[in-house]
Every structure is written in structure tokens, then in C-alpha cells.
């Protein structure tokens, strides 16, 4: 599936919707999009991920990269509306507290994720 990005400018910054696969071929393209965020210093960027149908190691690595980048660029990146594949990989890798966003798990998906670790911020 082709990567697709929808951008909506808000008062605080921008809201972005991504659809498609968060895997190497698409990340190459998304990387170009994210380069455009650089001038959004001090702004809030909300990244909606409910359209992500597939994500692998390169995909979660990309999200970790973006989060770290946004911190060093003094931006506020928050991930929102995580799709089940995204939730599952964040659960497996214990990255929930790293991103620090609110997680909403649909009732029908409650058996698919456990959140045994990585959900608590450690000092």
C-alpha cells in the first residue's frame, strides 16, 4: 500500500495522519515528509497512526527516531490513535512509557496486548 500523509495545520502546530505500511520502502518516503517538520520548532505535532496497517522493526525504529528528534528540536511529538499493529509492537518492545502518549485499546483488542513492562516511567 502506498504511503499516504494528510496534514492539518492547527493553532498549536500540525496534525498528521499516516496511512499504509511503516516499513523500509515507505519510511524512505516519509523521511522526506518529516524533514519538512524541522521548521516547526516549539510546535506540537500530533501523528495519527490508526491508518498504519503494518509496522516492522524499521517502522518502530523510525518512530523512536522521530520522537528523539522532536525532543532535540524542541517539538512536541505525540502519537495518537495507534492501530493494533502499532500497539502490539510498542507492547512487545516496552516502548509505551518511552513515547509517553495515552493509549486507547479497543475492547476487541484487549486480548492482543498485555503491557506487562515498559509502561512506567523510571527515574
Amino acid at each position, binding site marked *: 500500500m502506498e504511503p499516504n500523509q494528510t496534514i492539518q495545520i492547527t493553532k498549536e502546530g500540525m496534525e498528521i495522519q499516516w496511512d499504509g505500511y511503516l516499513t523500509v520502502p515507505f519510511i*524512505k518516503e516519509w523521511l522526506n515528509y518529516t524533514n519538512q517538520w524541522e521548521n516547526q520548532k516549539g510546535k506540537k505535532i500530533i501523528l495519527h497512526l490508526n491508518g498504519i496497517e503494518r509496522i516492522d*522493526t*524499521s517502522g518502530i*525504529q523510525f518512530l523512536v527516531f522521530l520522537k528523539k528528534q522532536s525532543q532535540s528540536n524542541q517539538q512536541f511529538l505525540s502519537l495518537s490513535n495507534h492501530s493494533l499493529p502499532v500497539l502490539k509492537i510498542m507492547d512487545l518492545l516496552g516502548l509505551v512509557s518511552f513515547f509517553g502518549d495515552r493509549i486507547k485499546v479497543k475492547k476487541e483488542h484487549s486480548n492482543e496486548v498485555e503491557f*506487562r513492562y515498559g509502561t512506567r516511567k523510571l527515574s
Partner: protein
Amino acid sequence: MDLSEVIDAYLVESDELLREMEAILLRTESSLPDDEDLNAIFRAVHTIKGTAGMFGYESTVSFTHVVENLLDELRSHVIAFHPSLTEILLKAKDHLSFLVSEETKGKISNEKISFGQLILDEMKPFLQSSASPPKTTPQNDAIQSRTHHDSNLNDSQNEVTTNLQRKQLGDTTSYLISFRPNQNVFSQGLDPISFIGYLKKIGTILSLKTIDQFLPDPREFDPENCYLGFEINFSSKENLETVQNVFNFIEADCFLHIYPPGFTVEDLVDLSNQLPEEEIYLGNVWKEIQILDDKFFLTYLEEIKSRKTGIPSSTFLVSQGIHKEESESKLTHHNSDQIKDSHKSTTIKVDSKRIDNLINRVGELVVSCANMNQLIGDSDDSNLQESSLIVMRLLNEVREISLKLRMVPIGESFQKYSRIIRDLGKELKKDIRLITEGDETELDRNIVEKLSDPLTHLVRNACDHGLELPEERKKNGKDHQGTVKLTAYHEAGNVIIEVADDGNGISKEKVWNKGVEKGIAFGEMPDSDEEVYKLLFHPGFSTASQITNVSGRGVGLDVVYKNIESLRGSISIKSIPNQGSRFILRLPLTLAIIEGFLVAVGKSHFIIPMEMVLECLHFSEDHKTDSNQFFALRGNLIPFLRLRDYYPCDVDSEQPRENIVIVRNGDKKAGIVVEKLLGEYQTVIKPMGSVFRHVKGVSGSSILGDGNVALIIDVPSLFERTITLENQKLYSHRG
């Protein structure tokens, strides 16, 4: 990955550890071992057990397990060190050495296993003496070792620690998995997370930490590269192999280290050295994934600090109640260890075959450059000549550096004789001590390896026939303890190794009479000691009145002689009645490349080892008439020989102008008459083909720059051959 390489590394590592263990155990005979010693022995056995376990060498693992239990009780002072343990632990070390080498070959007989059991049975009384019998499961074992490792606590604290530890490992199926996929793993079509996900099918991931330390700057970020790593606390009832199998497909494309349940803080410190992240960062990660609790996190940090500085932490010393003086002595001890450690950290292990290959190539380069230099020398281009000189100088440096790669201190092999002497002393009921000197003297590893047998033979001879029994020594006014001394030093481009004893010496008369009796000596005893002692190297020669199962002076010395000869070395004997004997081995530094002096007779070329050449002189007409084969040099008469008389040489049509090369062999001088002196020549020794193996006076050959072959003169054996021929002439005249 080639498994044989890993097994080789295991063999080498085990050998080093066992040697260290033996050296410490031998020291315990004179003074009780300190904590450092006991820890070192424990670590040696523990490491071997760990590696053997990885390869599935069950016999080694089950044997070391019991030995490890005993050592663990010793180092934690549950039991005290009893002198008789030295003997048992030495036996255990020998058996372990055997198990390690044989199990890798896949052949352990039941007989040998039951022999191991006998050693373990000897340990039992000591193990049973402990308040609580040792646990036999690896998990409990690890709890013990962790508890003992945290030796900064007093007994009551230890108890608390044990409980804490047990609580922490309530689930004793906890594996630690360190997983670092290679950067190019995506291009191999592999998704590392899918392997982690698969772990869930064989157990439970208790906790996982994603390592993102190596994510690069935006400009360097490449989505095709993997920068993440993972530390996993994984619980499973499956065995290590099953857990490892999860990563089978990615094994070649990642760094993977799986510790099965029972790993210790020390293991974590070892692992932290292999991982790219900082030790403290890793400690925090392991704390976060509940591998380490607060207490063991501190122990981990102390261990890191201790290894880095070589100084145990202050809490360790205080809680041990160690006095200041002791602390200071420990500090000094640790500082010396630190020096060793810093040396270790700059040392890498390289397959000796690779170094041999390098030296061979450098050798070829030396020959080619010598050829090039010869051609350039003939040209008039001064720039070219200058450049060629620079290349030669650099090449000489490279040659020396590459040769040094293969050099090892002889001390490593001297060490093993302390065990031989200890065992022989017990067997022969003699009190013997070993003194070594010049342990740091370096020698080609190949020579050191080949020296092992002859040296062992000489040491055994010295113990058995050289040294007297204690009562006899007292009668002769000597100390009841006999001494065997091994000395190594450099002399004129050679390495000299001496095996000396302070025993009763060799009786010249006895040797000569025995020689006459055997029909290998004739007439009256010559004045020269050397002539007499040479008989000792005759096959089957022995002056021993009794044949013991250890040795007989003379028996087997012919083998020693041949071994030394095959190394292009020589052997001589010095002995003073009632004061002892000295066997002096003279060996070349290396077998590969020598500095030679190129000479020619007719159209044939010869190379004389440079370190033996003293000077070159014109051989005048007067000397040519000298039928006694002696040359007068500044008032001294020096024996000489003509190479032309010994080797068939093509004759030049011109009447040759002769020169004499004065050579030194040990403390003697001799002359070799040649026709042309061609100067210094670096040469690579090519071994002679098997057809020429028995040719005397030649130690090898070399290809010259112009493609011609030059024979390398083996000076000692050439002169020996001359003496033999002269003697034969003499006896035939008499006859």
C-alpha cells in the same frame, strides 16, 4: 561460523586457565591461598564449565560442577583450605585438562569417567563437612555464587542476601538475552522483532528494554539500517538450546548472548565488556528489566570499578575486616594485576597459522627486495638507489616486527616444570625446588613448543640422576633440598637455555669406561670433557646402575640431542663432581628468516648465519701449505676447513683468491675457507627436502635474488663432521 575455530578458542582458553590454576595450587604448598587465589581458581573452573556447557560437553560440565562447589565453599570460607586439598585439586586439574581435550574430540571412555568419579569421591569428605550440602542444580549454584560474590557482607547480611536473591529469582527460569541485530539486517530480509515475538511461544517475556543509544543524527539516519538493540529478561522452562534455536535464522546477522538461569554479577560484568554500550548504562538497563536489584546493582558497579582500577572497593575491605597493612599489600597486588590487565586488554589472540603465513610472505618480500636491490645497485640512478635503501630499511623493520609476533616468553613453558618437579620429588622421595631465571626471554613459539619434550627429559634426568637423596646430600655437606635451575638468556643472536642441578655431577671416568665397554670409545680417556660427555648422547647409553621408571642419565639423551639438532641448535654439558651438572642448549631465535653472510665457492653459493661470523680475512699462500689445518690468527691457532672439500662445487676457470671467514660456535672459533665474500644477506630459510634431511652441515636452503640456490651452512654440525672425519683418519692411521 566455523565451529572448529570456536572449539580451538575454547581449548586455548581452557589451557591458559588450567595452567594458571596449577600455578596457584603449587603456590599453596608453601603458603595457604588467599582470597584472590581462591577466587582465581574458582573463576577458572567456572569459566571452563560455562563454555563446556555451551558446547554440550556433559562430562566436563558434570565434573567441573562438583569441583566448582568445593571451590565455592572454599572461597566463601564455608570450609577452610586443608593442605591435602592441593593434591586433590591438582588431580582434578589434570583430569579436567584431559576431559577438555578429549571431549572436543568426542572420545571419553567410561573408564575415564569413573576415574573422575574417584577424584570427586576424594572431595566428598570436604564437601560434606560444610553445614549445608552443596546444591546441585545450576540455579541454586548460581544463587550460591552470587551470594558469595557479594562478599562485602557479614554472615547475617549474607543470609538476607540469599533470601533476597532467592526472592528475585523466585522464577528460576529467567534467561538474560542480549540481542543486537547487525546494521544491515533489513537488507537480509530479516525483521528482528519477529524473533522476539517468537520467544513468546516458548515462554514469557518478563521485561524488555529497547536500546536506542545508537540512533544517529538525522543526516546520517538511513531507514535501511537497524540501529536498535534489545535486552530481554525471559522466562522459559525450555532449555538453552531451544531458546537459542529461536534466533537460528538471524544468528549470523547479530550479536546474540543468552545467559541461561544462574548467571552471576560477574557474568554481567563480562557481558558488559562485550556489548557496545557503557557498563553503567547497561547496569541501569538490567536494573530496569529486573535482572539486578538495587543491592546487586551496587555489587555490579563495584565489580566494574574493581576491574577497571584493580582496587577493590573500600566497603569490601572494611567489611572483610582487613587490616590497613593487608589492604596496602592487596592494593599493591592489585596494581600489579592492573598492569597485567591493561596488558591483556591490548592483546589479541591470533591463529598462529596466520602469523606463519604473514612471516612467509614477509620472507618472500625480503628475497624479492634483495633481488631488486641487487639490480638497482648495478644501475647508475642514484635516486633509485636511495629509494631502494629506504624500502630495504622499512622492510627490515617490518621483518623484525613480524618476527616478534611469533615470539613468546619462555617463562610460560618454564612454569609447567614446577609441577613435574613437584610430582617427581614425591615419587623419588627427594626434596627438590625449582628456580627459574630469565622467564621473560623471548623465543619463537614454534621452537618453544618443540623444546618441551627435550627440556622435560633433561629436567627429569636432573631430578632422578642428578640430585642425590636428602640423606646423601646431608652426608656430602649439602642442603637436604636439591635445586634444579632453569635459565634462559640471549647470547650472540641465540637463545641459551640451561638446565642445571646441584647434584653429584657426572663422573667422567664412569662415562668413559662405559663407552669403552660398549665399544663406542677407544683408548685412554681424553682430557676434553666435551669428548667424554658426547658419549652420553649415544643411543642406548646409560651409566645408571639402577633403572628407575623416571630416567637414567643418558637414556634418551640421544633423542634430546636429535630434537635440539632439528631446531638448528646445539647442546653441551658442563659438570663438576659433587657440585652438579649443567646442560646448555643453544638455539636460534627463530626458524624463519636469518641474517646471513653470502659466500661463494666456484659457482656455488653458501650462506653462513651472520651471528656466527666474527671476521673475514684474506687467506694467504702461507696458510695453504699448512697440512695441520690450522690457521694462525694473532697468535692463536684456529682450525679451519675448506668448503670445497666438503661440497662438490663447480670450479671457476680462474685461479681463485681464497678468503677465510672466522666463525664462532659457542665459546670456540673456527675458520671456513671460501673463494668469494659477497656480503650480508637477509635470507628466508627453506627447509631441505626429505631426501636431503640427513645431509650434515647444511641447515636449509635459500633462493637468491637471481634464482640460484644457496645452501645455509650449519656451522656446529659442519665442524662436528670435520672432527669425526679427522678422528676416523687418525684411527685408520693407527690401525
